[in-house]
């Protein structure tokens, strides 16, 4: 039996890496929402976080490994599954399959692209053709607030982030409940609860993350 080659083993790895990413997404959202507290909120939060380089780097290593494993396995999964179902039915009628479930690979790949862009944008802070505002605030801290507010003042950037969050919403509205099933934690009694939990959490992510570019674009958060 092997974790990375058996069909169910690979699903377990998909589920664990997915779950790790979900945990990250929860933490990242809580941190990001400090932007609603103004420059003192998010700049102080960022400074505190970067005062813990071990935590930051450990998270980066774990998350990048998780993302890489998740992507490689998901591509293999999708290719194998397409090969196992070579012909579609003439009538495309589905009893349970959802739009989100059917498009996991596409919302996933979109998220993969977004993660790369997002890291270049706000972590590496170097995207060809994008002017990224970088400076210090009045307390001598890196001014995350001004960088983000300036970025989401541009309609294209704001739209890119909102679209990515829509993809995250779709991916997780299937993915979260799927994790419990893949890990064998599900049964008939828990199923409705897990389905609801997945939907509610993914809506929270959509509204929580989505609110930031939207609020900034419409001037609700400004310098």
């Amino acid at each position, binding site marked *: *039996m092997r974790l990375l080659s*058996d*069909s*169910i083993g690979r699903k*377990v790895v998909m589920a664990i890496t997915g779950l790790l990413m979900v945990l990250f997404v929860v933490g990242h959202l809580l941190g990001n929402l400090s932007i609603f507290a103004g420059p003192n909120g998010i700049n102080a939060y960022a400074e505190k976080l970067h005062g813990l380089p071990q935590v930051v780097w450990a998270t980066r290593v774990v998350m990048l490994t998780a993302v890489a494993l998740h992507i490689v396995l998901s591509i293999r999964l999708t290719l194998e599954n397409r090969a*196992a179902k070579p012909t579609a039915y003439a009538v495309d009628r589905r*009893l349970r*399959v959802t739009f989100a479930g059917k498009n996991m690979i596409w919302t996933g790949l979109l998220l993969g692209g977004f993660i790369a862009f997002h890291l270049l944008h706000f972590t590496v802070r170097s995207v060809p053709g994008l002017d990224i505002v970088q400076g210090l605030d009045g307390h001598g801290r890196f001014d995350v607030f001004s960088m983000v507010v300036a970025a989401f003042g541009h309609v294209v950037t704001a739209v890119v982030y909102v679209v990515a969050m829509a993809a995250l919403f779709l991916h997780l509205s299937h993915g979260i409940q799927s994790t419990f099933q*893949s890990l*064998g934690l599900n049964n008939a009694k828990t199923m409705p609860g897990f389905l609801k939990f997945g939907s509610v959490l993914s809506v929270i992510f959509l509204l929580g993350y989505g609110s930031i570019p939207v609020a900034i674009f419409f001037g609700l958060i400004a310098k």
Partner: protein
Amino acid sequence: MSATEHGTMNLKLIVWRQSGPDKPGRFETYDAKNITPHHSFLEMLDVVNEDLIKAGKDPIAFDHDCREGICGACSAVVNGVPHGGQERTTLCQLHMRKFKDGDAIYLEPWRARAFPILRDLIVDRTALDRLVQAAGFVSCHTGGVADGNAILIGKPEADYAMDAAECIGCGACVAACPNGAAMLFAGAKVAQLAELPQGQVEAPQRVAAMVKAMSDNDFGNCTNHYECEGACPKGVKVKFIARLNREFTKALFQETLGTISTNRGTSKE
């Protein structure tokens, strides 16, 4: 116009015709005339076939045996759904009262790489038998006929195993699955046996062999759409797939810790 108790209906059938396993297939349109609401779906096909035979044409080949919803032989995808989409109903138990005069009905064989088409609506489902041969059994000595209650089994455990054993092996789960996976079939088998004392002994070896047999036999992987549960004519639940995943993870743990080997026991090398 809906068919009444006495009225008959005329339908259009758009049927997949394929003369042999590696032959090209195509849809052909036929009229199903004078069908009563009391006809079962298969009886309706009998009527159409009689007309085809009288006209000197090849009848539509379809699988059937018991015609009472217990054997799992009947199998066709009706308007995109295996067995036609009436809850807990095999195709042979689907009745024409569910259709209206003038309806067009698409009829296709189960489609999955693991189920090659033999002819028209008939597919080769022996891949499911191979899963059972690889892992769907208990290999302890049973001796003579034992007393009915010599091994005590609780009512909830017996019911759980019985719910899993409701599977009639028709393959609708594979046909419905967008990934051509057999996880519901395999999950039901693994869960049924792992739940009972006779099957518990070999549970880790069984789940390992089952998962391997699924990929060896060209089935896909589960992505938790639960389409199989929707299509199952016996109401077998995806909780058995979760059980399969649980049994797999448990066995993998035990093997990694070195407390068991999944190469012994049921595997026969």
